[in-house]
């Protein structure tokens, strides 16, 4: 296999990072932000599984890397959220049925209503009957078939550079993430997605003990390494402790990320922003939006991007599918030419690492899964030239790589830590750092508790981890659902401090604790001693 790969013009490594923060609100009958998961399931995860199944049936081998965050895998296994997803689909099927009547006099819109009715009905059928509400089992199946390399990330997707002063916490985030992965997939992950590609020199020392071979870095994280990377971004570098860093190829990132000059901005593709939730009369759409008054996206979008005006053309799925194939051809053609150009200067086969947010494919770029499928099929056709590999495959072919250390970096705006540390969100660190210090103090005070106290301490550890999700400062900076993000951070800090004070007074309220355990029920295996210095 190794010699076979060395003879190619290039290797392409598609890495999809699937992550959502822990959002679960049993205290509310319906909760708006839980739709983040439902939309990702409907538009990204189920379509991707459908794509894997078609490729498998057609005997097209593929090698993809998927990073699944522990918060996401927990939510995908949660009975309450599974039931709510089914309710969500039933609600959308009902809306689509209503739309079939509403649009009866408009053949173009009627066709759209039919499309969504079929799509949501298929989602429901497959979710219930094929996956039995557990899509992780199917992902594991594709991993066992050799098609997927599933990797993990930190427990709650913490932006590690802003916690580098707390080694026990970095370890707790990484170890809990790996343990969570192991419990779901029964394997040790070979790679670790550093949340937001947030690297600081030395983080590799926390990764190495768990058998992790590689992580993904931003482009400049690798290019600004201690020694200049002699192969640019087209070969990984090896940190002095043996862990490898693969960097994001900028050209292929931009091609699929940019709304202006990337593929997803093509006029024939479905418009993400024009949603029925904003187009239909309020009394008609009320049962399907937030509290019956706040218009929100329903997921039913009838228009193509067309142009920047409000006069949009109705979406044409067939035309969009043709375009997705054209774009896949174009993408691959460019990668092959890129590899040919690179080969002039390299003494090995170049690798083009293409890491993306998984939810880009389908949720935002509706045709993204079609693009990926067409790309994979095309790569299979052109397998004499290029091949899909995982970073692990590459390391088997080329185990020896340039030794140096990447630079502090992230994939955020301007490339460092400012997305997660600016005037909108810097207030959180005084509190989240204090929580870590207090947690360590609790571990020292209560080194080996059992029963109610142990439960309390484990819940305290959960609250510490949950407070550190990178999503909350990210949302505060990006300006979407800011009150919710602020509330979440405050809640976790408040819950922890309440536990801390209760333990100090020895007045643990069992009922309150049980309620909190049921609400923030992530990482049931968590042992609070993970915060101990010598754990």
């Amino acid at each position, binding site marked *: 296999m190794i010699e076979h790969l060395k003879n190619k013009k290039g290797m392409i490594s598609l890495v999809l990072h699937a992550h959502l923060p822990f959002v679960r609100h049993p205290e509310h009958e319906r909760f*708006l932000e839980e739709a983040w998961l439902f*939309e990702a399931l409907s538009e990204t995860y189920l379509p991707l599984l459908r794509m894997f199944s078609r490729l498998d049936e057609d005997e097209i081998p593929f090698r993809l890397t998927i990073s699944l965050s522990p918060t996401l895998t927990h939510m995908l296994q949660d009975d309450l959220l599974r039931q709510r997803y089914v309710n969500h689909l039933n609600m959308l099927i009902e809306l689509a049925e209503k739309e079939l009547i509403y649009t009866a006099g408009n053949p173009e819109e009627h066709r759209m209503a039919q499309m969504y009715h079929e799509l949501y009905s298929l989602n429901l059928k497959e979710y219930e009957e094929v996956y039995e509400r557990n899509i992780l089992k199917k992902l594991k199946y594709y991993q066992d078939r050799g098609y997927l390399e599933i990797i993990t990330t930190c427990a709650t997707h913490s932006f590690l*550079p802003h916690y580098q*002063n707390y080694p026990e916490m970095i370890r707790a985030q990484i170890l809990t993430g790996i343990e969570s992965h192991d419990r779901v997939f029964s394997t040790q992950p070979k790679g670790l997605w550093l949340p937001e590609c947030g690297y*600081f*020199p030395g983080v590799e020392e926390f990764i190495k003990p768990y058998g992790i071979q590689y992580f993904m870095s931003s*482009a*400049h994280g690798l290019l*600004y*390494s*201690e020694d*200049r990377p*002699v*192969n*640019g*971004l*087209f070969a990984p570098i090896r940190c002095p402790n043996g862990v490898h860093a693969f960097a994001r*190829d900028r*050209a292929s990132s931009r091609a699929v*990320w*940019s709304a202006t*000059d*990337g593929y997803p901005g093509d006029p024939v593709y479905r418009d993400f922003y024009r949603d029925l939730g904003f187009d239909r009369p*309020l009394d008609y759409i009320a049962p399907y939006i*937030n509290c019956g*008054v706040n*218009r*929100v*996206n329903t997921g039913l979008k009838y228009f193509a991007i067309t142009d920047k005006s409000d006069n949009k053309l109705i979406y044409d799925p067939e035309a969009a599918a043709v375009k997705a194939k054209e774009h896949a051809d174009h993408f691959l053609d*460019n990668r092959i*030419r*890129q590899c040919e150009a*690179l080969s002039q200067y*390299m003494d090995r086969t170049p690798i083009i690492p293409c890491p*993306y*947010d998984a939810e*880009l494919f389908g949720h*935002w770029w509706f045709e993204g899964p079609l693009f990926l499928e067409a790309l994979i099929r095309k790569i299979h056709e052109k397998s004499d030239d290029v091949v899909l590999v995982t970073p692990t495959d590459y390391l088997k072919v080329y185990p020896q790589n340039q030794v140096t250390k990447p*630079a*502090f970096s992230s*994939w*955020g*705006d*301007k*490339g*460092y*830590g*400012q*997305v997660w540390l600016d005037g909108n969100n*810097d207030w959180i*660190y*005084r509190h989240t750092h204090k929580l870590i210090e207090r947690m360590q103090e609790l571990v020292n005070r209560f080194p080996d508790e059992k029963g109610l106290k142990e439960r309390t301490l484990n819940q305290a550890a959960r609250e510490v981890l949950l407070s550190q999700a990178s999503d909350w400062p*990210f*949302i505060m900076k*990006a*300006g*979407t*659902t800011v009150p919710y993000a*602020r509330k979440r951070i*405050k809640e976790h800090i408040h819950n922890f401090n309440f536990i801390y004070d209760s333990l100090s007074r020895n007045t643990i309220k069992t009922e309150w604790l049980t309620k909190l355990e049921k609400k923030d029920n992530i990482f049931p295996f968590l042992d609070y001693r993970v915060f101990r210095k010598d754990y």
Partner: protein
Amino acid sequence: MTEERLFSFSYEQLLEISNRGNIFVTPGVDKETLISLLMDAFEEDRDEREELNNLAIQMEARKFSVSRDEELDLGQDDDLELPLRYNDTSATLLLRDPSWVFCYWDLEDKKVDEIQNSPGFQGLLLRVVELNTKEYSQDNVLDYFDIPIKFNDYRRYINLPSVDTCYCVEIRAVVEDKDYLITRSNSIETTREYVTAPRENDITHSDELIRMSGFSSEFGEAHGVSGYQEIPQRIIPIHDLLDEEQFND
């Protein structure tokens, strides 16, 4: 937030929304004009947010797009008040980017009383200390500069004079023209913002490969992320690269 939704709010609620969004409204403005002002401000805010973020962040934000302008929700989130400080004596330094750090600190009430009551107390200083390694010792101090602070200051962004070095900060009290250490922060290592020069006798094609990675070909000098942002963004860079190759040939 839609125009229709804004019309469902009372005039007072609309004024509250404009207050929260720091949107200036002429006193006595009618409801329709107020709504129109708010809609314009929301749109401007949305465009600005989009422009300020890079592609990765724009994409990530879309995962959370179930609605628009949720930040103007009239719901309260301040029922869970957090302490402003924890009555500790400590300072913490966080690296934000190669040139900026964020520092937050706290001084115990007891300590504050003690300092304020010291005869000859003149003020507080935030000393930014450059070190030649991450470990603090007097011998490792390369340079420092002072920023005067007050007792009710608790945080600050600091622009650093040097890259690729180490820093810590100290809170110091000035008493009778001498300064005394109150607390010292953790040390941080700042970072490079350039591609390092090739090693002597470098026989690789690293210049070409780094250029083909989308970075400048002028590798002898520091080349920062700000420059990196300005590199022409090309969906089909390989065509350009090939053209350049042909031109060079």
